[in-house]
Every structure is written in structure tokens, then in C-alpha cells.
């Protein structure tokens, strides 16, 4: 059985749909700013997912439209959102206690780089004149039970963002459990990096793009795989 599940690379929306499908029903989830926010478009009512926003809310609904817009009801990206039945509000220390105490099942984050051991770099380019801004990225990276990354596999220059060691400043050490990219889904575990599926390329073509030893999913004993 091939692990290539698509003849073309996945677009952002298809990738978001895939991440959404993989979220276990009943989970509590935090979706990071940017691409991860797209995932919310594909969560179904049957999944009964509760979204957390770190500025102080559980039960966040879709983006607010027109007269729903309320300046007191925003998400972590400062975008007006809505409130679902069963929501709750809390202050910032209580909100980060939810994250830092390991109560979120999944957070989905963007990334500049992910290392073969799950190190994450997503907050700072390291450029000497850049103004640093970290927000809740480090808390999410170290706090959630599972950290999923969504990113393109390659930079515009064609360099792999899945790396042996991150060259960008780290957000968290050994925290990422899965990486969803346009070209493949990677599972990161104690035994290394497993490729769950590929999109528009074979395993061998993928391995040629990535400077990290990869193992295809179907060659591993299922019990040894983390995060499936």
C-alpha cells in the first residue's frame, strides 16, 4: 500500500481540512494565528470541538460578521469573533493555566522550522534588526498535549523547513508531535520522523527534499508510532 494519498501537493484549504479531520471528537483545541485558523472552517458539529483563545475564552465561535462585531470579543489575533453556547470567559492567568497545565488536547501552530526531534522555531527570524514579539507561542508549544505544525515543506528558495537542527531561535524544545505540510504529513516520535502520507510525490522523492532520515509509516510497527 502506497503512502502517497494525493497526486498533487495539498493547497492550504485541503491541508486545513485534513488537520480538522484528524482532530479527535470532543477535543479542546487552540488554533494559532494565520494558516492554523483555517482549520476552524472544516471542524464539524459532530466533532464537538471546543476552541480556546488565549486572551481568555473557551467556546469561541466563527469570526464575527457585520453587526456581530464587538470590540470586547476578539481572538488572540485581535480579530472579532463570536461566542458559542457553553462558552466561558476567564482572566489571562487562568487562560494560560489551561495551556500551561497541559489541559489543551491539541494546538495547531505555524512554523519557520521544525527539527527531527520536534524542536519548534516559529517566533523570531533571528534577524538582528527584527523587533522580537513572542506572544503565547512558547506557552502553547510547551503546554498542549499535542502540538501540530502546519507549514509549507519548503521555503520559497526550496529549502526544507523540516531540519536536523533549527537555525532560527527556538520556541520550544522537543514539543512538536506532527507536521502537516503541502507535500507530506510527518509524525515525530522518540524513534525519529515517520511519514504518514505524501501528496504529489513518492516517499523517495520526499526523502530527497528533506535532510532528515525518514521512515514510511507502513514499515513501522503501529505500536511504536506516536500520535496516530
Amino acid at each position, binding site marked *: 500500500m502506497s503512502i502517497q494519498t494525493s497526486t498533487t501537493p495539498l493547497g492550504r484549504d485541503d491541508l486545513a481540512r485534513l488537520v480538522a479531520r484528524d482532530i479527535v471528537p*470532543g477535543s*479542546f483545541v487552540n488554533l494559532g494565528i494565520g494558516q492554523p485558523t483555517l482549520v476552524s472552517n472544516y471542524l464539524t458539529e459532530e466533532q464537538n470541538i*471546543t476552541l*480556546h483563545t488565549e486572551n481568555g*475564552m*473557551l*467556546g469561541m465561535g466563527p469570526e464575527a460578521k457585520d453587526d456581530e462585531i464587538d470590540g470586547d470579543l476578539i481572538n488572540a489575533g485581535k480579530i472579532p469573533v463570536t*461566542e458559542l*453556547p*457553553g*462558552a*466561558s*470567559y*476567564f482572566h489571562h*492567568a487562568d487562560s*494560560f*493555566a*489551561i*495551556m*500551561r*497545565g*497541559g*489541559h*489543551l488536547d491539541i494546538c495547531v501552530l505555524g512554523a519557520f522550522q521544525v527539527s527531527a526531534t520536534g524542536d519548534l522555531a516559529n517566533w523570531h527570524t533571528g534577524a538582528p534588526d527584527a523587533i522580537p514579539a513572542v506572544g503565547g507561542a512558547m506557552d502553547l508549544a510547551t*503546554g498542549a498535549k499535542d502540538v501540530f505544525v502546519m507549514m509549507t515543506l519548503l521555503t520559497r528558495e526550496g529549502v526544507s523547513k523540516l531540519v536536523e537542527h533549527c537555525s532560527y531561535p527556538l520556541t520550544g524544545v522537543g514539543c512538536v508531535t506532527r507536521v502537516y505540510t503541502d507535500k507530506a504529513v510527518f509524525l515525530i516520535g522518540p524513534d525519529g520522523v515517520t511519514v504518514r502520507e505524501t501528496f504529489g510525490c513518492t516517499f523517495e522523492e520526499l526523502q530527497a527534499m528533506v535532510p532528515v532520515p525518514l521512515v514510511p509509516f507502513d514499515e513501522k510497527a503501529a505500536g511504536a508510532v506516536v500520535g496516530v
Partner: protein
Amino acid sequence: MLTFIDTVGEAVAGIKDGSTVMIGGFGNAGQPFELIDALLDSGATDLTVVNNNAGQGDQGLALLIKEGRVRKMICSFPRQSDSWHFDTKYKAGEIELELVPQGNLAERIRAAGAGIGGFFTPTGYGTMLAEGKHTRFLDGKWQVFETPIHADVALIKALKADGKGNLVYRKTARNFGPIMAAAAKHTIVQVSEIVPTGALDPENVVTPGIYVNSIVKVA
């Protein structure tokens, strides 16, 4: 994953021998008597129990202690006029006691839920309850290093739950409920009323449903 359970017996059925069990309540206020009775009936033993007290009279936690199910108590105030079951076990050397100042008990439980690996507090500095503990001079005071108290299970009592597991409490019966719910791997709540999702004002939810695993309505 949140489950609504019909009986207190089913709710506590998964509690294993040797577990650390947090039990809400300060005195009788907020003490989940029905869940404790069910725990007694379940036969679970060799328990470490975290509660402010060590049982009153002939009910609840006091009976669990009387029946020899509690190997160790972590509490702030075991000795009361009616704590005779604890007193007997303690004097017989049949129960271990970790005595913790009440504020340290609360803060250590809170730390477990909030992912704090340890903290410094002035409480207890220079007393026998800080003997052997690491100390440091911080913020102009000598402070003592304290560590989180985690639990396998929390048994708590709330007034109402909605369909998402959000909880509200009643008056001083709130006490340890919210912090224990966050500190335990599995939180079991007895409530007087289950209301539809959306019936609790999101501004007034005290324990968000993310901290709750099992809910059982008690008449």
C-alpha cells in the same frame, strides 16, 4: 472527554487502589458525600487523600479513614472535636500525615493545575513545617520552596453543570472545587442540577468544562 453518568457507583468505578484522590470541601461545605460513599462501597484502598481536613463525625471522609482505606492524608487541619476516626488511626500509627499550611495546600494544588513546577512562599518560613526545605531570600523576605500536588482523581461537588461540563458553585462550598478540578487527571463532579448548554452565563462560569470528566446528578 466529558461523560454524564447515572450513578455515583459508576462514576467512581475506575478509581484504582493506590490512587491519589483529591476530595473537595472545607468541613462539610462542598464535601461530595455521595461520591465518597460510593468510593467507600467500591472497595478502593491504599489511597492518598488530599482534603483540607481529615473527616468529621461518622460520615464521608471520616468513614473512609475508619475503614482503613486511606494510607496517607495530605491536609491542613486534621484535628477537630469530631475527627475521632482520624485521631484513632493516627495515634495507632495506621495513617500517614503530611501536614500543609492551608494556603500552601491551595497554592500547591493550583500549581499542579497550572503547570507550575514549584514556587517560593514566605508561609511557614522558620517553622517546623519548613524544616529541610529549600529556602531563598526573594522580594525582601525569606521564602520556602513548595512543589505541586497532583492527583489521579478529584471528587468535587458543584451546584450546577451545563452540557459542556461548565460548573458553578454555591457560596463558601466553592472552596477547593475549582483548583482540584484542574489538578487531577480525572475529575468527577456531583451536582444538584444539570442545565442545558447555554443556560449558564459565560461571564459567570467558575470551572470551565475542560477541567471536568464525569458528571453525576445527586438528588
